[in-house]
């Protein structure tokens, strides 16, 4: 494991994953050996031992695969830059009462002035009635 910088907070440290791969490689080798042993034993009269070996070997391989996937997702999460939320502004026309929702613009605030109403065309700006996080649209089911 590499040393963390202790004094200089500007320095980075790398994620050392070699030992993880070492253990994973070991698990894969053991699993393959177990599968081989199990497959060979299936021909002999002691089939129960063979089946157990085979089962353990397959479980080991699955476990190794699962851990690799988990590692991949975690590494991706570390590198991912946080992204801003999707915020919308809801405006209500003071004259005709029609409501318009559009993406948030810097400078919008609740009970402040919004855009001009396109429906009634009055010069008076609409009232910003709400600013909120819009839920992403649900993906259509299969």
């Amino acid at each position, binding site marked *: 494991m590499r040393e963390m910088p202790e004094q200089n907070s500007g320095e980075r440290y790398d994620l050392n994953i070699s030992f993880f791969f070492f253990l994973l490689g070991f698990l894969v080798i053991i699993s393959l050996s177990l599968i081989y042993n199990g497959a060979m034993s299936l021909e002999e009269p002691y089939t129960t031992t063979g089946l157990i070996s085979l089962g353990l070997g397959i479980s080991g391989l699955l476990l190794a695969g699962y851990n690799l996937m988990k590692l991949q997702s975690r590494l991706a999460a*570390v590198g991912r830059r946080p992204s801003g*939320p999707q915020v919308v502004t809801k405006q209500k026309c003071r004259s005709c009462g029609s409501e318009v929702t559009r993406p948030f613009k810097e400078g919008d605030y609740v009970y402040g002035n919004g855009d001009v109403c396109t429906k009634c065309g009055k010069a008076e700006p609409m009232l910003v009635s709400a600013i909120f996080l819009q839920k992403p649209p649900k993906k259509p089911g299969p």
Partner: protein
Amino acid sequence: MLKSDFIRVVSCDMFPTMLLALFAQLQLPVDIGTVLNFVFLILFLLFIVWGQKIQIYILMKDIEFVLRRIDLMKDEGRKISLEKLKKYSAIPDPSAALDRIIDYILIEPVSLDPAGLVWKLDYLLKVAEDRVKGELKQIVPNASDTERENISNVLEVAASLSIMYRVVRHYYIIGKKTGNQIIIIQLQAMLPDVMIQADALMGALYAYTYGHPIGDGTGALVVANLGYPKEFKDMGRDMEVCETDFEGRRMTILKSKGPGATVGYPGDSVLDVTKRRKYNLVIMVDAGLKLEGEKSGTVFEGVGAAIGGIGTEKFKIEEIVANKKIPLYGIIVRMSMKEALTPLSEEVLKGIDAATTRVREVIREKVPEGGKVLIIGVGNTVGIR
């Protein structure tokens, strides 16, 4: 993967082959079962001797992942703060000033003699706020008051992320240096909570940067709903007041001054308005943290001062209502910590409407016609008039 790692992995893969060769040289019966037995025996001994060390190593890896993520968040916080400062800055590179402000600390007053401690703390908080505001006025003279309030809060969030990173790193290094398993296990157990807080702070960072109303502004939004269309007037430090009638009852509405990001000093304003008028009831509206499993946006009520923070404002309000014997009710909208610090969700928005309706119902029930009620909207008023 580094070259050394590759060599290590390859040597691991070659281990059974080497064993087979060794068995052949010693003229032992060579079959895969014997090799496996031998390998399991080695593994057994390995885990007896180094089992705990391997477990600790895995825990340390978990901590490193979180530390790396908070490090990225901290950098993002600094980057956004710097961009915001540069936008209005009078100096070409405000990074030195930014680092200085991020590292500001508030030295808490001595509590050996607790009498008068709240007032001392209140004074120090105001001095600390004045200092940051004063510096910001010099660094970003072209920014409006609203922008300056938002920048001040962005810096506060960046400072919180920086502190969070440094604290986690501190315990990580202490655990590594001393090999103290208790420290490492405790730190690893706290990681989910740390990440929830860090995520919430990141949400707050964006909200303050762009001026989005956040869940913590629930109280301010409820009272803004009650006061609309009346205009709020400035009152004291970062506070606004509005007087309006509701079904024959006089409502005095207090909130922090929007739309900049500030929580104001509601305690001082309550002290001020109660000196001039006698109230039948005081209602406080605020956002409250929900427990896991509870629904966001549900409204609940209580008796007492519904206000969080360091406690100075709560103390002032409790002191005033207790002395004047005014009933004090609290109306709270439940939400998670992330919802409290990030832009309003649709559930919280529904909760705000429900809380506004409930405040009106409470006024009808508890305040007689011709009576007076003081309503305090507690919370950060970013993005709210």
